[in-house]
């Protein structure tokens, strides 16, 4: 009882600064028999910057996509600003999407459009905010991400990876969303460009009180940008009954964690994974991936 009362206090709008703007409640995601996410409950407070770390295939990108309705959870719910997004109709969801900005892994710029049309796309969908002009907004955002105005008539294919990512950021920022989601923003970039992106994320947060969720496996970026780090672990590798969230805390607490799997990831050590890989080479593929769902036969024994 004590816990539920505390819970209610923290979730009421009265508690101002600490009110969660986004919450997942026992969210699970499953494709066929393959469980990607199981019972994930996370609260994100307004203005927070959270980095979600984890190895490839742990479901962190799927988690991010489920937050904005790009994927529907198999069970559980996602609540944004008090509204369960799965219960919204098309019109309400479209209106809500004005408040989200999504920076995709490879920018996902529309090939058929110029950079200018790409950045202006959310304005065409939702309209230009009152008292502002589309051209000014585009120039402002472009300057903010440090790109010259001569890129505007170009096509995405004419830009480098780093420039495309910055255009993606400018597009996500054009309507000044309340929630910004970054999917591996520094992956595939050189160290200097990675740092430029880190700085841009930090500058955006300084400019206005945006809530950011960054999915990354770049520890340098996560430590630099985030105030809170969540580590997800692949469900198939967990012991029975364990939570998929192995770590949830400030970056400073990462070094003092006792969980070997977390410290291994943070330090970038292969550890027993290397032994597993060698063992699988000797014993065949059946040992490489362990169970999928304890309730179901995962089918591996058929091979």
């Amino acid at each position, binding site marked *: 009882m004590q816990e539920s009362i505390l819970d209610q206090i923290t979730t009421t709008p009265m508690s101002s600064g600490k009110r969660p703007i986004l919450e997942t409640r026992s969210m699970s995601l499953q494709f066929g028999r393959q469980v990607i996410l199981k019972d994930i409950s996370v609260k994100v407070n307004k203005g927070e910057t959270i980095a979600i770390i984890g190895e490839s295939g742990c479901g962190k990108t799927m988690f991010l996509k489920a937050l904005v309705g*790009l994927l529907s959870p198999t069970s559980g719910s996602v609540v944004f600003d008090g509204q369960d997004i799965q219960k919204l109709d098309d019109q309400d969801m*479209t209106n809500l999407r004005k408040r989200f900005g999504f920076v995709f892994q490879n920018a*996902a*710029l*529309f*090939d058929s459009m110029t950079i200018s049309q790409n950045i202006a796309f959310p304005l065409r*969908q939702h309209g230009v905010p009152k008292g502002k002009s589309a051209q000014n907004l585009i120039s402002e955002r472009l300057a903010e991400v440090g790109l010259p105005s001569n890129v505007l008539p170009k096509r995405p294919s004419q830009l480098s990876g780093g420039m495309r990512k910055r255009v993606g950021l400018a597009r996500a920022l054009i309507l000044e969303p309340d929630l910004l989601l970054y999917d591996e923003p520094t992956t595939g970039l050189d160290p200097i460009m990675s740092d430029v992106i880190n700085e841009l994320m930090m500058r955006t947060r300084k400019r206005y009180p945006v809530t950011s969720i960054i999915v990354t496996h770049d520890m340098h970026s996560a430590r630099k940008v985030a105030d809170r780090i969540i580590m997800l672990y692949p469900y198939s590798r967990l012991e029975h009954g364990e939570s998929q969230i192995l770590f949830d805390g400030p970056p400073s607490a990462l070094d003092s964690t006792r969980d070997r799997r977390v410290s291994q990831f943070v330090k970038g050590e292969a550890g027993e994974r290397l032994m597993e890989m060698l063992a699988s080479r000797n014993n065949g593929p059946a040992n490489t991936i362990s169970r999928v769902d304890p309730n179901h036969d995962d089918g591996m024994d*058929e091979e």
Partner: protein
Amino acid sequence: MATDPFPNMDSPQSRLLSSLHRFASVWGTVVIDGVSTVGDISIFGWQMILWMFRAKPKRETLMPNFYAVGVLSLPVVALTGTFIGMVLAIQSYHQFKNIGLETFLGAVINMSLVRELGPVLAATMLAGRVGSAMAAVLGTMRVTEQIDALISMGANPIHYLVVPRFLACVLLIPALTVMADFMGIVGGYFYSVIVFGIDHAQYLRNSREFVGSFDLFTGVFKSVFFGATIAVVSCYRGFHCQAGAEGVGRAATAAFVQSFVMILLLDIVLNIFLDAVYFAIWPSGAKLF
């Protein structure tokens, strides 16, 4: 082998049962996959129809698709039509000349063109040119997360990507079919009258006498359905594209093959339907002219 219900493989009877079990399982999977794909395509088509009326398509999405489907396909459709007309003339001329009916070539060529070959071959050509291109473009958009980006910015991908392509196909493929018919008639006339020297007046008189407006309508009517099929199947394949270059390639191939099979199936069904309509309206099978 844990799921094998016949672990004892020694007796011929259990071997037979085991192979029957495998046969049923393999064909069962094929049938279930087939039925679920047809169901998925139907739902996809239904959503597209809903979105066509729910919101007005944007000019910026309509014009490039109309240009790609209509204008850019014109040369290839005209070329196909011309050559079908000429080939029909070459193939039929000697047989008809032997029985002294070469002036009836006008009726034979033009009737086959406007009723069957024009619409079907134009649609086949367009399934290859337009359908696979659509599947490849949408497939690449799916793989590079551009479709997710559209959704995340509040645009409905069916309204934004599929409806304009559907309208372009449904409105312009019939127009292109008329072009293929016309060029086929010109090609057939050229080879029959100019090359084989059939009498110009008799060739045209026979054409006019035997080819009626219902024949022309039949071809154009069918092409509306062919256009719709090409758009729905190709867009569906693009939307359900698997990751990677191979996935996009497969989507483009599947778009063409499935559109082509659907065109052939629809052709039979629509021909039966149109024949029934024709004989219901004109029980004696009389011509319009």
